[in-house]
């Protein structure tokens, strides 16, 4: 039996990959590549480099499938944090820290347009309601909170570097990041509680 990708959840796909099933890796790629590529592109601003990192991420998943620990969270989170880490590694190796900080304002400001070929929402797998919940939560943030969060996440900057970049006190930057992410966390708690009760997705 070779169940279709749609019938396998992430956990089963990862188990198949760990058992050496390349078809499962292909299915996982189809499921998450548009989202992972969007993340790589957002960090790197270079399609060629973003595609390189996209491929590296899935090669690493293939070679190190056993590193994924379901107790540490959903597979989607694991893949996205891995992609973010590898993208930042590539970005840092390309630029000096000074250049990185100077460009990171642009990192936070650029928003790529939706690619209709990529499917919607997010390759048809990540529930649309969750994407909308995240977008709505981020829109509720103060613009300065959102900028600080995005400089940390997409720019890979520490709070000290963000404080230097934005010419703001360190404590203020810490507060903005903590409040911004705290509001996102609260919104997600509400979203998933609704999901549990009403089967949103």
């Amino acid at each position: 039996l070779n169940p279709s990708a749609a019938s396998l959840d992430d956990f089963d796909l990862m188990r198949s990959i760990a058992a050496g099933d390349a078809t499962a890796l292909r299915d996982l790629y189809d499921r998450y590549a548009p989202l992972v590529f969007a993340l790589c592109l957002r960090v790197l601003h270079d399609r060629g480099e973003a595609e390189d990192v996209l491929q590296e991420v899935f090669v690493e998943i293939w070679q190190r499938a056993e590193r994924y620990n379901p107790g540490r969270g959903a597979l989607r989170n694991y893949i996205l944090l891995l992609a973010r880490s590898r993208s930042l590694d590539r970005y840092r190796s390309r630029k000096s820290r000074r250049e990185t900080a100077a460009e990171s304002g642009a990192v936070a400001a650029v928003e790529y347009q939706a690619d209709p070929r990529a499917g919607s929402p997010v390759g048809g797998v990540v529930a649309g309601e969750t994407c909308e919940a995240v977008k709505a939560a981020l829109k509720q943030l103060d613009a300065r909170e959102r900028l600080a969060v995005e400089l940390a996440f997409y720019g890979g900057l520490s709070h000290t570097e963000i404080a230097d970049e934005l010419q703001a006190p360190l404590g203020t930057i810490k507060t903005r990041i903590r409040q911004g992410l705290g509001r996102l966390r609260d919104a997600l708690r509400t979203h998933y509680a609704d999901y549990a009760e009403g089967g949103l997705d």
Partner: protein
Amino acid sequence: LLLLYAVGALDEGDAEGRELRAHLATGCPVCAAALVEAESTVAHLPLALSPQSPRADVRERLLARVAALPRLSAVAGRGQEARAQQRPASNWFLSIASAAIAASLAALLTYAWLSSSLDRTGREVAQLRSEIGTLQRNVNDRDARIERLESDLGQSKILLASLQSRQLQVVALAPQPPQQADSAWGRIFWDKDKRQWHFHAFGLKPPGAGKTYELWLVTADMRKLPAGTFDVDAQGNASLTVAVPPGEDMLALAAVTDEPAGGVPQPTGQFQLVGTIP
């Protein structure tokens, strides 16, 4: 502070960060669970991005590349395969030795048969008794197997009924510390219609003399509610069905500890499995 840590915004030299890292290294399950939630929050940020299509050849190049690449865990397994391939040589030697022993034994029996028909009859009787004993053991083994299968079937029916629930949540439990990722694991199927947890554990070690395993429901405000004790079979597997107490729907964690036989009202032992409930 965990949110700052999860997004990578803490400087290496930050005193609060050092203190936090040291605390997390102690394996505190409460902070570990909070960190999982913080990392999950951070990992949701890219969901606000518009999905993008890489070029189609990226997928083809990836698949061609992995086809030529060994999986690193598979490389480790190859040594075992090589060792397994060595077995036929030693088996060949053992076969020769066994054949020689069998031939010697046959000669001895022939001599015995020639020297004393009474002795031969006695040996045949002993042999028949031995075969009867073997058959009896086989029957006992099959009875035990049937009993196990019936028990498994009963568990499967319960699980199947829960999987048909319209309000089903699956919770994955991982070993503690998380580095032991290839050892024990567990899953809970939370049937919210019937307010039941169907808990399954796999690969747990025996809890030790005078001890048992205990399952815990941990609420969002970190109250730990005992959910029952259980023992594991020879493979380290166990199943348990638990009624979720009324009014306790805001659960944050499921955990398994090892405790004195009979269980305790609050956890005192080591956390063996922990799973966050999103």
